[in-house]
């Protein structure tokens, strides 16, 4: 027996918050003479990837000052002191995550 009657039900979904659009930072005209931080966010066992990355960057862009840093503690933790340092001393940042 089929039910041809139509019913209304309640929406099971929750409330996603409104999205505030965040503009990206202006880009650099060149990497030459600039200080670029290469940050390991500390996902387990990603260090080897980071070491190869910075080796290659130094090989291919020798006029850039590449600075290697490890974020503190676990990969899901913030590191405000590092961001302050990058703002003060850096011109850009590459951040690598593992998995």
């Amino acid at each position, binding site marked *: 027996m089929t039910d041809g009657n139509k019913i209304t039900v309640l929406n099971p979904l929750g409330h996603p918050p409104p999205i505030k*659009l965040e503009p990206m930072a202006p880009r650099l005209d060149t990497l030459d003479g600039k200080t670029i931080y290469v940050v390991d966010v500390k996902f387990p066992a990603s260090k080897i990837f980071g070491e190869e990355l910075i080796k290659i960057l130094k090989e291919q862009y020798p006029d850039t000052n590449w600075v290697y840093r490890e974020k503190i503690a676990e990969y899901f933790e913030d590191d405000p002191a590092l961001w302050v340092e990058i703002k003060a001393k850096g011109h850009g940042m590459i951040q690598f995550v593992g998995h």
Partner: protein
Amino acid sequence: MTVEKLGIPTVPIVTSTFEWPVKNALYAKGMANLRTVFVPHPVAYRPADECRDKILGNDPITGKQVIREIVEALTTPLTEDEAKTGFIERPRERLIGPETSEGLQILFRENGWTSYLPIVLPTEEKVAAILKGTHRQPDEKVGEMQPSSPHEKWSYNVEEVAVNAVMAGAKPEFLPVILAIAATGVTALFTSTNSFTAMVCVNGPIRREINMNMSIGTFGPFNHANASIGNAWSLLSRNLGNGGAPGKKYMGSQGQGHNYTNLCFAEREERLPPGWNPFHVQKGYKPEDSAVSLFHGWSWSNLGGFESNRSKFIKRFFTYQTECCGQTMVLDPLTADQLYKEGFNSKEQLNQWLKENVMFPQEEYWYYRGFQSQGHPQEFELAKKGIEPYASWLKLPEGAVIPVPRGVDVNIIVAGGETNPYWQGGTLQYLASSSIDEWR
């Protein structure tokens, strides 16, 4: 994103498996166009030459050379979209339909709002009926939930929890338990690539009031309250907690069958040995309080036997449980009795003994998951220099145990039907407890 907002151009490098979760998270945080470079998955635990090849090779998503893409991400001027400000509102309709019952079952299923089994359709009448199970107002906020950081948190109210409770087939008297679970903000469907098991334990008088199972077939599939409360947790994790979309917000490589109803049960407090407190009392509640406690982790095993020295067997089991995220066991009352006869006069005493006696397997001490850096690198250096006891420990064969306590806390709960002295255990971590009485 934090550094971008400080005015410094950035480029994240992510493995390709996470393309959708990353893009979704960036969209939700308002920077959908952040120039992300992808490399072939995986990167963790890969040797140097393989990592080098991935860096010198192409982004599997865009096809561009990875190094060139990194540089372009930092130097190419912003587009109009990348520089935009403002807000994107995402309103939500309260009602769905009108549509036939069959059509709604298909709609809910195809939208990924169910566990892919038929649901009880949440009509206004059914939701109004289940709301009689709580004194709280329908529009009262219950909490917020995310499948993991960095996904955005969604918020939800009493009515919306009730909708998911109806879908799970719950009765009004189960609603306070489901609300208490929702109030913790803990998801049953954690994003991770590992397929987490989730568990919910109910304590207090409500167990008997709603006829929960804590005897034969404790973990299922034999009880309405256990099944529908557990299923409701998964549904609300999916629908209210912004979770459960495979490849996007759920990355569990093999999935987890437990997540249909989770390991939902009640502690059999009446059969605790003398001096053993109910789990919620251990967490600071009074015995007459009703509370719910949540757990999750990687592994869960079903164990048992007829050996008389039960504590040694348990110790041996946890010695080799070295994966994420904690340690938990649920003992049949007969097993708890055996341990009590061995001299463990409280859960705390048993936990302390395990903390002092669960040691490291040799391989895990030195090379956790095959990486020396993840083990005990300082002790490894001392061992290579011939310093004892590390030097002798390094010579121990595979399978041996290093006599260093791991200091693991084990959550101990008692439930089961006493048909045999079995128990279940694994690497589940305690996450949160919540008062059920507040939601009655």
